[in-house]
Structures are given as structure tokens and as C-alpha cells.
């Protein structure tokens, strides 16, 4: 889960780019003049936030957008990037400019962090529909989020800044996990976003109405076979993400979106804290996650074999709770790659015949899972990508001799 966001983004800059794009696509709509706020604001950070600070400045004169982000505490890694502000759109047949895409990414991300909203999200895979109730509050300092699963086993996720708890009332268990500090917006912080326009083509499509809101519709069309297309609807007024469809050749594989949402509600911290206290006395489980490196674990990936555009994001050792006959915990190594929009996990573990039975491909909505028995190891590749891409990840893995 994303921890508190600390990008002091000038709200108007991306909005300007977004509106300009929209005005061009729908000429009937009069383009509104939006004042550009010159002074970048620095946001106060909550105590304990893993992300210490980030600042974006927009200068009207240079047109340069400077992103400086200090990463995790202790690492003191500072990235400074000069990024072009959205240039006047050029009428290229291949879609929008890279600057436009970046402006949309920033706008949508910013809205996801700063908005106060309550709504119902429906996820549909074509064969199943599940919904959850979501409340997200930001009071200027703290991010609070509560997600209640409405179908199946009762389960609630509570997030307070950079800590996430999943409550299982029937089991009286609370699973506490730190949110990934990179979740702040790794695509922007890591510089990965520079490659997104090489991998996806942005098309701003005619606006539509989603969950009672006028929404801008964007198509991120994959430029190759290693990823799916994404259709994105963002609230026209605020930029809040309203719906995401994952598509292949125009067919929707999976859709996630609000069926209704109230944006701009009053922050209701009691909704989170009361639920938190209801879980007093629950057994606390803190899954051990240990960050490592693939090559430190004796593995390497042949870069030429990997699908284009995927960059290594992380590698962790973790214990998975295994259900069924061979119930227990399995120690696995999980390596994660991202292309800036979607990500792939490769799980590596010793082969266990009693547990690892079905080698093959499993499809749930857009999520594909490929399992393969290689020598004495069991590999599981998971991602919202075509199976051929997963196959490439599995084949690229080599044991260092």
C-alpha cells in the first residue's frame, strides 16, 4: 500500500496539461484558463513516514519540471531529474506526447493521495465480480484508508500512513505489514516513467461519465506483445482514478472501478480508528519480509531474454501461508519487475512434490500465472501480462554456478 505521499506537487501544472489535451480532443468544450501556481509547496510529513521528502517545481519561464525525491530513510539517495513540462501537443498520428503522459500520471497520482472520498469499487474478471467499500482520507498530514471486502470472507484493510493492517474478524487475526516505501510513486521516483512512452502509446479519448462523474478517458496502448492495453478513466474535476480496464486487442480482460463514489467528503478518521480498536485482542501476525538481491541469492537473469521495458524493482524473501493438504508456510524468494505501469513477480522455491502439482498456466481476469518445474526448483511467474512474457521471465532465470 502506498504510504503517505510527500510529493509537493503543484496541482495546477498537470491539470493545465490535462485540460489542454482535453480541449484539443473535444473542441466543443471551451478551454478554461487555469492560473499556474509558481510557488511549489512543501508538505509536512507525518512522523515515521518512510518517504522523507519530495518536491516538484514548475517554472513558467523555463518550462522545466524538477523532481527531487529523497528516498527511504537511511539511504539518503537523492534523485534529481530534469523533466520537460508538457510541451505544446504535436499532432503526431502515434498519439500524445511523452510530456502529456507524464502530466496525466502526476495528476492521477496526486488525486489518489490528496482526495477524500468514499465509494464502492467493483472488480470484474468476466467470470467473477467482487466489490469492496473504500474510504480514503487525507487531512494534510496523515493518510487514512479503509477497505472492506463486501464479498466472501469478511476482511478489512486499514491503512494509517505507512502501516497496513488486514483484519480477519472471524479468525480474530490482524496481519500488520509495513507499506512499501517505494509505493509513493516509484514510476516517477525511480525514473522508470521515462520509458513508459516507449512501451505504451497514450491516446486521449472522448470523455465519458463514470460512477456519476464526468471522466477523462485515456488509452495506454501497448507498443508490443509483452504487455496489455490499459484504459483509464479519471475524474475530470479532480483527476481521481475512477476505473481501469485491462484489455487485449479491444477485449476487456478485467475491469476495476467505482460503481459510486463521493469525492471531497469530510475526513472521517473515526471510521478507521474505531475499527482499529474493534480489533483489540486480535492475534497480531507480522509477516517477515526480508529485502535481498537476486544475485546475492545465487540467481541471475539473462537480460537479453527478458521482455523489453521491464526493470528490476525489488527482491524479497518471504513466507507464504500455504492452504490445503500440505498446509504450512513456504519460504520463497520473490523477484519483482515493473515496466512503470504493470509488474511481474517471479517466485523461486525448492520443488515439493506434495505441494507443487499443477505445472501450467492459470488465468484469472488479466492476471496470468505460469508455474514450471525446473531441475529441483519450482518457479511461479505472476503478472497482468500475456503468458509469453511470463514464459520469458521463467526462461531468463539462471542459477549461478
Amino acid at each position, binding site marked *: 500500500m502506498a504510504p503517505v505521499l510527500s510529493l509537493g506537487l503543484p496541482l495546477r501544472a498537470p491539470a493545465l496539461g490535462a485540460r489542454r489535451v482535453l480541449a484539443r480532443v473535444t473542441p466543443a468544450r471551451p478551454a478554461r484558463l487555469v492560473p499556474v501556481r509558481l510557488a511549489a509547496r512543501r508538505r509536512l510529513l507525518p512522523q515515521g513516514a518512510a518517504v522523507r521528502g519530495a518536491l516538484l517545481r514548475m517554472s513558467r519561464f523555463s518550462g522545466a519540471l524538477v523532481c527531487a525525491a529523497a528516498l527511504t530513510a537511511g539511504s539518503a539517495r537523492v534523485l534529481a531529474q530534469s523533466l520537460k513540462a508538457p510541451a505544446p501537443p504535436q499532432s503526431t498520428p502515434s498519439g500524445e506526447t511523452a510530456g502529456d503522459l507524464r502530466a496525466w500520471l502526476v495528476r492521477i497520482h496526486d488525486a489518489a493521495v490528496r482526495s477524500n472520498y468514499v465509494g464502492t*469499487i467493483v472488480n470484474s474478471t*468476466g*467470470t467473477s465480480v467482487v466489490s469492496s467499500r473504500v474510504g480514503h482520507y487525507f487531512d494534510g498530514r496523515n493518510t487514512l484508508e479503509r477497505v472492506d*471486502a463486501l464479498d466472501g470472507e469478511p476482511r478489512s484493510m486499514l491503512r494509517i500512513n505507512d502501516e497496513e493492517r488486514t483484519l480477519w474478524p472471524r479468525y480474530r487475526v490482524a*496481519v500488520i505489514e509495513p507499506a512499501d516505501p517505494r509505493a509513493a510513486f516509484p*514510476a516517477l521516483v525511480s525514473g522508470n516513467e521515462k520509458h513508459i512512452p516507449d512501451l505504451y502509446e497514450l491516446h486521449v479519448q472522448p470523455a465519458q461519465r463514470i460512477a456519476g462523474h464526468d471522466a477523462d478517458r485515456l488509452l495506454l496502448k501497448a507498443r508490443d506483445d509483452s504487455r496489455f492495453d490499459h484504459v483509464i478513466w479519471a475524474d475530470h474535476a479532480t483527476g481521481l482514478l475512477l476505473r481501469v480496464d485491462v484489455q487485449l486487442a479491444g477485449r476487456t480482460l478485467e475491469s476495476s472501478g467505482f460503481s459510486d463514489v463521493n469525492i471531497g467528503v469530510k475526513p472521517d478518521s473515526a471510521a478507521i480508528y474505531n475499527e482499529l480498536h474493534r480489533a483489540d485482542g486480535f492475534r497480531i501476525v507480522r509477516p517477515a519480509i526480508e529485502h535481498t538481491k537476486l544475485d546475492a541469492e545465487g540467481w541471475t537473469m539473462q537480460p537479453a531474454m527478458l521482455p523489453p521495458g521491464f526493470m528490476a524493482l525489488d527482491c524479497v524473501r518471504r513466507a507464504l501461508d500455504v492452504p490445503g493438504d500440505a498446509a504450512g508456510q513456504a519460504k520463497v524468494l520473490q523477484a519483482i519487475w515493473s515496466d512503470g505501469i504493470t509488474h511481474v513477480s517471479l517466485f523461486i522455491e525448492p520443488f515439493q512434490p506434495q*505441494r507443487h502439482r499443477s505445472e501450467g*498456466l492459470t*488465468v484469472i481476469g488479466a492476471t496470468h500465472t505460469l508455474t514450471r518445474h525446473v531441475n529441483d526448483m519450482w518457479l511461479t511467474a505472476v503478472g497482468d501480462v500475456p503468458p*509469453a512474457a511470463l514464459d520469458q521471465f521463467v526462461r531468463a532465470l539462471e542459477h549461478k554456478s
Partner: protein
Amino acid sequence: MSQPDSDRSSTDASRRILSALADGDATDGEAARAFQAWRDDPDARAAWHSYQLIGDVLRSEDLAVEPRADEAFLVALRARLAAEPVVLAPQARAEAPAAAAPAVANGAVGARSRARWQGPMAMAAGFLVVIGGLNVLRPFGHGADTVAAGAASGPLMAATTAVNNSGVVPVSQQTPAQTKAAADQLAPYLAAHRQSAMNAPFQMPGNDLRNVNLVQPAQ
């Protein structure tokens, strides 16, 4: 009008039937003849369109459209239907056939013809299920025949295929229990994957609660 009388009278009869069909008054046999004429005779199609157009315009002038628009739509629809691969034949239904058919094949009055449509509707529904399955399965079909996703129901349905060294190839259809077992085995991996997915820019909140029924806390 240089056509012989016999042709003309048969055409008139055909038009009468088409008109009856448009009004919802055609009987079984008449409907079948009308469909036949519609398929084989361009004039009948034109007449059918005229009747519909007249009806539409009587209801609202906004409904008056160029015949070519309909024609283009139908041509495109037929072409796409023809191109649609038939992967699975619907299973024969075990139930007894529907009750005796009413005398009127279609009707604007509603309920009297409903029983008659149940059979075709059920078949159409079966077809949609297959298409739904294909939508899910096609990405890893690679041109080969794909497998049905089984009859599994519930919060999560998965289909599993085997792979070999040349890529992904399908295997025989799984039973729902097998599908469920495969999905159960994968659930903790999916949960771990989705949890580390929170960095994705276009992620709806609560994404990692999706496979809620399958992942359970450590006992």
C-alpha cells in the same frame, strides 16, 4: 411490373407474411417462410426495412435512418459471426423440450410467446458463456484450440493449461475441483504479488483484497 402474375402473387403473399411478422401476428410456418424470404430475396429485405421504417417513423421521426446504415451493420455482423471460431459445441440439454408451442411465433403482446423463446434464449445464453470463457482464455491460445474454463463457480474461476518447451499449450478440460485446487494453491502467490503491486500508477484501492475467499490468515 413485368413479372408474371404467379410471381407477383407469391411476392404479395410474402409481403403479407412479412407485414404480419412485423406486427407480431405471424404464425409458426409463416415466420419460417418470412425468414426464408428475408434470407434469399433482397426485395424482401428491402420491404422488411420499409415496414420497420414506417413503424419507426409513426412512433418518432427521429427513428428514420438510412437503410444503408442497417445494411452495413448487418453485413459487418454477419462477417464477424462467420469469422468467430467455433471452439466448443454446446452440450445437449438433458431436460425435456419446452412445452407445446403457441400458435404465434412472435408477438408484441408479450407473454404469449415467451415460452417459445426459452429454448433459443437458453442456447444463446450458453453461447455467451462460451464466448465469456473464450475472452478469458484466448490470450494464451496461440492459435491452438483452447480449453473451456470448466463449470467452476464462485469468487474466482481459473483455467489451467500445461506448458512445454515450445510455449504454452492447452491440456484437457479440468474438473471444477481441479480448477479450484489450482486456484487455491496459487492464492498466496497472487496475494503476495498484488501486495507488491501497490506501486503501480493505475491501481484501484483495495486491489489486494480481490481474492478474498482464498487467502486466509495463518492459523
